[in-house]
């Protein structure tokens, strides 16, 4: 035990860690939460739930016209039919990109986001610059993300709320005729489903 001396220093928790532990202990003791259930939620969001869930939805819509109609008609219902439990319990609306219109999603007030299909929001989605600029200057925001659209393409901004969240259905890249859903899903990035990006070009997915 050569390190014995170090033990006398004890441990330290930051003020933030203390606050989180206090909340968790009090709420557990009062029966509001169960630490094991918290671990399951965290595990799910770290591993199972992420943009790949949304990518499957988009790929299926590209592949299956009936599913696409169902998705655009009632996003929550269509996604539920794929077996994704909605934990957030809100209304998911899928908005379709076309040559005439590009959709982009923001939450101007906080960071409402379709967690169930995209996982947790990226840092920039939660930032004040994105929240304000996406509404005022969507074309400039897209340029920052390296997306240039024809001037004739209208850009529509969707402001998420706690009740209604949006998923962008990007345009299927050309040159992907005959591709399987699994292969198509690899083209779908998180940013493409927020509207700040486009699907990967087919040559990037062998």
């Amino acid at each position, binding site marked *: 035990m050569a390190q014995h001396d170090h033990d006398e220093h004890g441990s330290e928790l930051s003020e933030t860690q203390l606050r989180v532990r206090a909340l968790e202990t009090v709420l557990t003791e009062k029966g509001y939460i169960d630490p094991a259930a918290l671990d399951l939620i965290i595990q799910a969001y770290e591993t199972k739930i992420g943009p790949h869930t949304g990518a499957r939805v988009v790929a299926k819509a590209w592949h299956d016209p009936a599913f696409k109609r169902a998705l655009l008609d009632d996003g929550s219902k269509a996604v539920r039919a794929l077996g994704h439990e909605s934990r957030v319990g809100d209304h998911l609306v899928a908005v379709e990109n076309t040559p005439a219109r590009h959709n982009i999603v923001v939450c101007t007030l906080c960071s409402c986001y379709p967690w169930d299909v995209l996982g947790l929001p990226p840092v920039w989605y939660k930032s004040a610059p994105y929240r304000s600029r996406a509404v005022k200057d969507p074309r400039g925001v897209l340029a920052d993300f390296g997306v240039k659209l024809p001037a004739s393409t209208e*850009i529509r901004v969707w402001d998420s709320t706690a009740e209604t969240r949006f998923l962008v259905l990007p345009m299927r890249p050309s040159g992907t005729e005959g591709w399987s859903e699994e292969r198509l899903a690899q083209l779908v990035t998180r940013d493409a489903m927020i509207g700040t990006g486009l699907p990967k070009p087919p040559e990037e997915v062998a």
Partner: protein
Amino acid sequence: MDFGSRSLRSLDRNDGGKIDPILARRAADAVPSIPRDAEGPIFREPWEAQAFAMALALHARGLFTWPEWADVLAQEIKRAHAAGDPDTGETYYLHWLNALERIVAAKGAADAQTLARYRHAWARAAERTAHGTPIVLEPEDLTD
């Protein structure tokens, strides 16, 4: 900054294609460029994940609705912003934690005094725990 979330909110959300170019330019000049990230780690620190999961669990239990949560969180973000927080998204889970403490107090699940008492107890537990050993709260940590 001469525009806040209130004024943004009043814009027609279906009006994305008809944005006043002068306003747009002014907005673009008024804010720094947007921080970017890769599709990297979801939580930067374990406490962020804990705070996130607690809100989900409390909602699932019916302590509050998502509109109520969004309202409190938006107020916290606005307040932090007004107090000089750069609000780049890095401090997001701190706002989340503030909102959590406020909403559990408002809903009568845990008041501020009790939370403060447990914070002190955890600090005491940490202090008496050898470095590298899991910190466990004991009843004696809660005695005054």
